[in-house]
């Protein structure tokens, strides 16, 4: 659980000008440590933040996402900190966490300064089997996109991947790395809005913003297709969290977005794609019941290889569908699905039909 900063009415600061009160920068306040609760398996939790090395790091946490970035079988934790260096908690084999954000090059952007990190998702967006990161930030900063090199390092690729200039004017909160057109390549989604409700006093800023979707061009780059993604994507609101899942079980990822001062938005994905898909529900036996942390590799009949993992974490103030979605392109058959469960069990299925919701129990 991320914590933000030490604010109270007593310590509250006043910022802006008379008639133009604005949110104060978080750098004016002390940060707070995050909390890690261990599930005791009986409906109770134990706070293990101190023993696991989480609480000794004080930041200004906004978003949190979980993935096994170094492929050692243990889930690691990324915390997006607002105007402070981001944290990457590397799992020390279940015995604790080391904070390696600086050493992994995700603490700051490639310009060596923090941004207003808000939401985050931690998934493989270039089909190389290594979970990478997207982080949302405020206008004028661009959304950091960190590619996992697989050697313990990440490289900052916002501009190389084509979202740098496009996201410069956006302010974002929730974020997702999801395959919206089922072509087998994950796209990017961000829920957008400025932080200050009177941001429009500055002609360059807009409080209410439309959301954004960046389509994967299959080569590690993305194209902003928000303008062509339908009228629902043009709604300007004070968007904040967004959660992803297949709400109507049609194999296409839908989005639910919260907004301040206006109703939540439910975006049904009605893309006219004929591509195929599979949705996988995991049931752990030796592992945790929901199979959280299970890494799944899919190889289609035509050889397209795709990776994802079971997690509900990510985005901002939201929780996603625990089922794992894969777009399969034109393939109707999956040659192989490999499951690496948190228990260490490796399970493989062969020749699985596409376009179904598959429930898989750990062997």
């Amino acid at each position, binding site marked *: 659980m991320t914590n933000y900063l030490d604010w109270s009415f007593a310590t509250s600061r006043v910022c802006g000008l008379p008639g133009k009160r604005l949110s104060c*920068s978080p750098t004016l306040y002390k940060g707070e440590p995050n909390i890690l609760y261990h599930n005791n398996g009986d409906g109770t939790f134990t706070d293990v933040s101190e023993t696991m090395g989480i609480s000794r790091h004080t930041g200004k946490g906004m978003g949190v996402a979980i993935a096994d970035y170094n492929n050692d079988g243990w889930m690691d934790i990324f915390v997006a900190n607002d*105007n402070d260096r981001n944290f990457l908690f590397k799992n020390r084999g279940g015995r604790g966490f080391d904070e390696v954000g*600086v*050493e992994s090059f995700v603490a700051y952007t*490639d310009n*060596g300064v923090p941004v207003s990190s808000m939401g985050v998702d931690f998934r493989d967006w270039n089909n190389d089997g290594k979970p990478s990161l997207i982080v949302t930030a405020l206008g004028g900063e661009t959304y950091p996109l960190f590619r996992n090199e697989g050697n313990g390092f990440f490289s900052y690729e916002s501009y190389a991947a084509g979202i740098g200039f496009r996201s410069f004017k956006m302010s974002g909160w929730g974020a997702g790395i999801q395959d919206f057109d089922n072509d087998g390549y994950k796209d990017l989604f961000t829920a957008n809005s400025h932080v200050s409700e009177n941001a429009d006093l500055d002609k360059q800023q807009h409080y209410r913003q439309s959301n954004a979707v960046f389509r994967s061009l299959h080569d590690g780059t993305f194209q902003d297709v928000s303008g062509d993604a339908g009228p629902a994507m043009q709604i300007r609101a004070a968007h904040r969290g967004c959660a992803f899942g297949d709400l109507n079980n049609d194999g296409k990822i839908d989005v639910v977005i919260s907004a301040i001062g206006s109703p939540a938005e439910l975006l049904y994905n009605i893309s006219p794609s004929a591509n195929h898909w599979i949705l996988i529900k995991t049931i752990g036996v030796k592992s945790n019941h929901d199979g959280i942390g299970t890494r799944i590799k899919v190889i289609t009949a035509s050889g397209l290889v795709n990776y994802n993992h079971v997690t509900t974490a990510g985005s901002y103030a939201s929780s996603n569908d625990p089922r794992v979605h894969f777009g399969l392109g034109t393939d109707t058959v999956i040659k192989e699905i490999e499951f690496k469960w948190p228990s260490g069990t490796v399970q493989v299925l062969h020749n699985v039909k596409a376009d179904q919701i598959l429930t898989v129990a750990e062997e």
Partner: protein
Amino acid sequence: MRAAFLLLPIAVCTTGPAFAGSCTGAEDQLTHQQARLAQAKGNVNEAAELFYRYTDIDPNDSRGLAYFGRFFLEQHDYMRADALSAAALDKDPDDPAALAIRGQILVMKEQSSRGQALLEKAIKLDPDDPESQFQLGAIYDKGKAAPQAVKYFRKATTLNPRDARAWDYLALNLEPLGDLERADRAYRKGLDVNQMGRYYDAFLDYNYGRFLFKRNDLSGSKRHLDRAVELNPDIRAVWYERARLDLRIQNYQQARSDAEKALACTQQGGIIDLQIYTLLTQVYARLGNVDLATKYANLTRETPPPVRGEPR
């Protein structure tokens, strides 16, 4: 990087040079024109001599005082520029040249709203003065109001296509608007006319190199950042930017060299130590030098990020 002339502090002057004499006519106009010509040619001593002579001949000519003030401003003699601009405006509050130079000086003295008002009046009276257009654009640039800044810089470049600074600022303000092709053209036009003199811009190559880096034209970026390093070897920002590019193109030894030079530079140019430590952490980690990578990682952790006191 914005050119340094907008950032230099200026001392407040209470007394100005003495002016004497009272004679008007063709001679003073000729002297005035000769002074401006000498100024344009970069003949500083000759221009100063002629300006002095002119103000001796006609000490009440606001235009002459204004141009003399601009001359001193370009020589970085801010106290005299301040005094002369004040005197010029005092002589004629409706003289566009006096309004323009006084507006510029007031902005430099951080009296932005007064300065802006004078520049707006100057433009209203003389919309064809490129310098006023440029200076007003610079105010909007400082306020991060890119659309307005673009409007004035575009006008400035139209009126004076030889002003490399205006092309640079136009490009810098087109960037955040996402108008990348026009920004690219503006940078290139600026580079085409970037000659030593009044409109010279030492950071055009730096800014264009950064732009090309973001556009993934890495070889083009390198060409311009190499040039930026040649032109501004004492400025940290140029070494830093080239080190970032070196890192991106996996030339780690060169990245190390450039980043270490950046760290040694005394003129920061907007680049703080934290940025260099972060960069050196990456460079030494890529080079496999664990000790130095750890040293700079520790420095990165120990160095607090900049405090942003301003609201957002």
